[in-house]
């Protein structure tokens, strides 16, 4: 463990000031499931942890009817999947919240931390993108909002400027006749990092797909929105053909690497498989059928 300081912020302004004073080696501490490991293993130089769990807005969880979901950046997974309103309206988030790490990790790990860690394989990011979420960012220059789809810029890199941090994530209320699903592939059944993960969302109107979003993770430097998949789906009823076309688009769009967790061919293939599976489940959820997160 490297030698570092710890400060607990109790307001957004205090956190921003602590981070600005701390300079580039100051890091936000939410659940700490990534950054504490990085400090211990010295994979990232950290001299100051600014704990944001004392900031009310950062541990918020509000799913007001029809007004969307506000998710504090440090709100832990267990609180999210323990919330009846979130589980009923945002099941794709639950798909992710309930499989990140084991139970103990889920008591600490947060979507905000997952996003800011900016791993290409982050399990929290594709469902946020598929649901059209934005990040509320605070910093020395005040507040700004950035769509999650544009937040991560590369492995371990994102749009945060020095002194900035994510306060909360804002997810729009689900439209009628819409549904979303997140799935990942890992070689084991738990305690693993996605070889590929995919989130898909669909909105129907009169039997036709009117909106579609397919997001593939761990198959490019950042989670990838497969525009061509959406185009293949919108404008017609969901069919075996359109699902196959979307899967083909996903396979074409990905730019995977070959590493110890997966080969290029495997990742490309799995992007297609998971696109098909998530689309089918998203359609079932849009029809009001129950799709359990982890059967």
């Amino acid at each position, binding site marked *: 463990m*490297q*030698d570092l300081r710890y400060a607990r912020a109790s307001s957004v302004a205090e956190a921003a000031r602590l981070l600005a004073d701390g300079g580039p080696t100051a890091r936000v501490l939410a659940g700490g499931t990534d950054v504490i490991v990085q400090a211990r293993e010295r994979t990232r130089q950290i001299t100051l942890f600014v704990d944001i769990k004392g900031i009310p807005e950062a541990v918020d969880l509000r799913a007001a009817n029809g007004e969307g979901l506000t998710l504090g950046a440090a709100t832990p997974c267990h609180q999210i999947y323990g919330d009846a309103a979130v589980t009923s309206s945002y099941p794709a988030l639950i798909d992710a919240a309930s499989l990140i790490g084991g139970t103990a990790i889920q008591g600490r790990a947060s979507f905000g931390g997952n996003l800011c860690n900016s791993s290409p394989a982050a399990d929290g990011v594709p469902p946020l993108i598929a649901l059209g979420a934005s990040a509320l960012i605070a910093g020395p220059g005040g507040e700004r909002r950035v769509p999650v789809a544009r937040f991560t810029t590369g492995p371990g890199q994102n749009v945060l400027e020095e002194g900035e941090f994510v306060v909360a994530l804002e997810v729009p209320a689900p439209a009628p006749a819409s549904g979303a699903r997140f799935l990942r592939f890992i070689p*084991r*059944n738990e305690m693993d990092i996605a*070889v590929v993960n995919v989130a898909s969302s669909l909105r129907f109107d009169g039997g036709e797909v009117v909106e579609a979003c397919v997001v593939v993770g761990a198959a490019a430097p950042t989670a990838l929105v497969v525009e061509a998949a959406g185009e293949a789906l919108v404008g017609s009823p969901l069919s075996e053909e359109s699902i196959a076309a979307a899967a083909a688009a996903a396979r074409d769009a990905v730019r995977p690497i070959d590493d*110890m967790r997966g*080969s290029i061919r495997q990742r490309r*293939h799995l992007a297609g498989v998971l696109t098909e599976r998530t689309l089918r489940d998203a359609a079932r959820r849009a029809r009001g059928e129950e799709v359990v997160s982890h059967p």
Partner: protein
Amino acid sequence: MVAPAKKPYRVVGSRPVRPDGTDKVTGRANYGADIRLPGMLYGRVLRSPHAHARIVRIDAAKALALPGVKAVITQADFPAAEDAITDLGETASNLKWLVDNVLASDRALYHGHAVAALAATDPHVAEDALALIEVEYEELPPVLSVHEAMAEGAPRVHPNMHTVEMLARFSPGPRSEHDIPNAASHLRLEIGDLDQGFAEAEVVIEREYETGTAHQGYIEPHNGTALWNESGELTVWLSTQGPFMMRDQLARVLKLPVSKIRVIPMEIGGGFGGKIPVYMEPMAAVLSKKTGRPVKMIMQRDEVLFGTGPTSATYVRVKLGAKRDGTLTAAEAYLAYEAGAYPGSPVGAGGMCMFSPYSVPNQRADCYDVIVNKPKVSAYRAPGAPAGSFAMESTLDELAEQLDIDPLELRQRNAAVDGTRRIDGAAFQSIGNEAVMRAAAESPHWNSELQGENRGRGIAMGYWGNGGLESSAYATVNRDGTVGLVLGSVDIGGQRAALAMQIAETLGIDYEQVKPIVVDTDSIGFTAVTGGSRTTFATGWAVHEAGLEIRRELEARAARIWEVDASLVHYDDDGVIRGPEDRSFTFREIAGQLHRTGGTVQGKADVMPEGTGPAFACHIVDVEVDPDTAKVEVLRYTAIQDVGTAIHPDYVEGQIQGGAVQGIGMALTEEYVYDDQGRLRNASLLDYRMPTTLDVPQIDTILVEEPNPGHPYGVRGVGEVPIVPPLAAVANAIHQATGVRTRRLPASPRVLLEELLPEE
């Protein structure tokens, strides 16, 4: 599930609570990491970032200048090591190689090879200081597989090494006439006439197989705390399977008489063969000598994977000859096992075990121990046997398919029986091989119908010879009628309970009357490792003999009290001492009178029993393979094994279940991943994928009890053989589910998907 068997025992075969259980589940049990001594320093190890490099220069000045750093050592701080063989029980190792593996001399031979160590007042300071040790390396080309290593003109990891012909598994002979690069040794095992055997065959099948490097995966990292005091005596608290083996290795590495070394074994959090060699313990000792303070060293998880011995990656080629009715006429194997950086792979055991469940008149196995730039392997549960059996049992499955014979039926037709000769020429006596196969054939699992798509069932046999070796024990009779049982065998798998049960049986007393304790090397006679499936067998012999001595002495005491001739007094198996005229003492009664009849009574025994009973196992597994992702789900698993007598059936079943799960890991997910420069890429339990509880089903067990006549209670070693069959059983099941023969394990989704997808 226990097959019905006659149980004439009172204690043996019951399932009492283990004596060490409460402290372990409440966290009170003391492990090496719990040691804290006044003035203690914390040691850390600097490891090579290269798979093969000359160490040009080590400069510790900056590290030593960091406040809190008390000493830095390299191999130059160790006594010079001559070449000598030190017997570790399961593998052999030359002293020079042993020392070089602890701390590199002029060359680092694998990624993670220790090159320096330091001690500081604080573990964080020690970690900071590591980065300040400057090492200049000159990189050398690494040799990373047996194929690369043995190729003509391959770079030699040990330039002066010449292939040695082994006379037997543990007996090196002369230099071979056929020197092969990096092949430390060649062992040929042979019976019958192989050419004749193949000439008689109507079907011949030859196949090649490979397995990856797998680690034992014990949860407790290696640790050791050393105190070298001012009178030159060394005390070491550590986690080991064999305190006396540790003492011997420390004595050799440090050039100290064993009488100057006291090894105190702490509780052990898993070993599986991997906690027999020394790693940081000698470094902690030298750092303590240099600083005059106790030094504690604990490996980080990645160090366990980088710096300790996994089991070999292997290449095995098998050729079988058979009649059309399935009768095997010839079996031939070529085995090349990675030894890592120093000789000592378990390849001989691979050749020894793979054909042993079968009666084949003509057999040959050529076994090569091959040096590569990877960590030196150490023992891992039935060392060497799983890979050889994977090859044999997969090929048998294919032969059964070709001949259209049920795979279990084919095995039964060729089953080794009493009198069958093994590949080393020895004839089996009192084995339960056929009984195991019969129990498999009658099992609910084998007789159930496998339903559903993409599913397959596999079956495989396994054999392991089990060990004997030295054990000491003594037992003291307390006045309250209890017995203190003093053991030199550390308790990994419930040995305290299994040994207390045996002496309770011998004395005719209750299990709860026996209080077992594991002591240090100054407190009992030499006892070999808890390993080789030997402890319940051999130390069981010792406690039984100790119990018999107590019985004899108590008979004498009773005779004295009753003033009768000792020949008229008899200690019966129910723990009652009976004499003439219906006089009798219970154990408790006579224990209370010992102080008036000559003082306390102890029984002791030092044994080295022959008569180990070999173990046979048959595993049945159902899998489902996702045709889209190539992920293999284990649906159902049954392990059938001849256990001789199950002293404590819970722990026997636990051993079988644990072995099966480790084998499933080797079959499906566990493997060291190296880059082309020989750097280990997955030194973490995130990416070195052991099965979790969600990855395996309940492992059902069927205990076959064919008592071993070489043991008073019929014990056969049970711990190792269950890791032998799973590899082939799973591979055979995958074949039935998919039509694909996986000849390289692990059959990870990445690898299996390539087989399932159309060729690109």
